[in-house]
């Protein structure tokens, strides 16, 4: 009897595709919310009299950030949408290519965000921690 371990990789990969689908959907939903809020900001910029440029700039910035977030989300969905591969199929290589490219895109985003968050967190923490030590 064939066990789970004996199955070919493209069949065992089914759960990974489902995970990528769930992950991709969460990211896409977050992006859609972001887009809606960005457009609200841009519309609001024409209605307010004070600081209207700020609203416009904030809207454009949110759209930019959302677009960057959208790329790995769509890539996850694309990976999840691939058809099952077989001996005659061609998509078996494409799957891992797409999954690897998604991680590379995430590396670019989180490379910047992660380093900034770490430096910011470490600086503020050290400032507060040493202040407690100095009883200042």
């Amino acid at each position, binding site marked *: 009897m064939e066990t*789970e*371990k004996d199955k070919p*990789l493209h069949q*065992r*990969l089914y*759960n*990974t595709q*489902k*995970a*990528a689908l*769930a*992950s*991709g*959907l*969460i*990211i896409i*939903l*977050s*992006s859609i*919310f*972001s887009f809606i*809020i960005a457009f609200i900001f841009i519309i609001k910029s024409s209605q307010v009299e004070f600081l209207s440029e700020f609203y416009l700039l*904030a809207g454009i910035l949110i759209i930019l950030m959302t677009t960057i*977030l959208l790329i790995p989300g769509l890539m*996850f969905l694309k990976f999840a949408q691939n058809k099952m591969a077989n*001996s*005659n199929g061609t998509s*078996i*290589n494409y799957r*891992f*290519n797409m*999954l*690897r490219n998604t*991680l*590379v895109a*995430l*590396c670019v985003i*989180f*490379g910047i*965000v*992660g*380093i*900034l*968050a*770490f*430096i*910011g*967190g*470490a600086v*503020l*923490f050290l*400032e*507060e*921690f040493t*202040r*407690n030590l100095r009883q200042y």
Partner: protein
Amino acid sequence: MDILDQDIERDDNELHNTQVVQIKGFATSAKILSIFFFLLGIGGVLLATTIVLRYRRHLNRNWVNDTTLDWEPLLLFGIGGILGIITGWLLMRAGIKGARDIRELRNISTPTLAIWNSAIIFIGLTLGYIALYILYLIVKYEI
């Protein structure tokens, strides 16, 4: 018929070799990404700790009027940071185990695939949580 079988076998071997290279690439990317998630998570947890330390300092000095614990940034940085650290840990395991499977089996084992699944789900959770929480703050305070 034999020639056809040999052709299919050769095609499968070529596919498998390409696949092995791509899985190696995935494992390396996962390891690099895990470092960035660790940095993000540690930064978030440090910021949350800073908020609690500041609150305790204000309490110790009896600055009663100026003492409130900021729950919203605490939840954003604290839970976001913990999610980031968990995602980094899962990605690191996915990368290490994926690379080991390729080295020893030239394929991916089912337990490793299970770790990949968890890592992918946690990437989505961390990203979604941070993005939606920031949006909630933007809407609440009408920045």
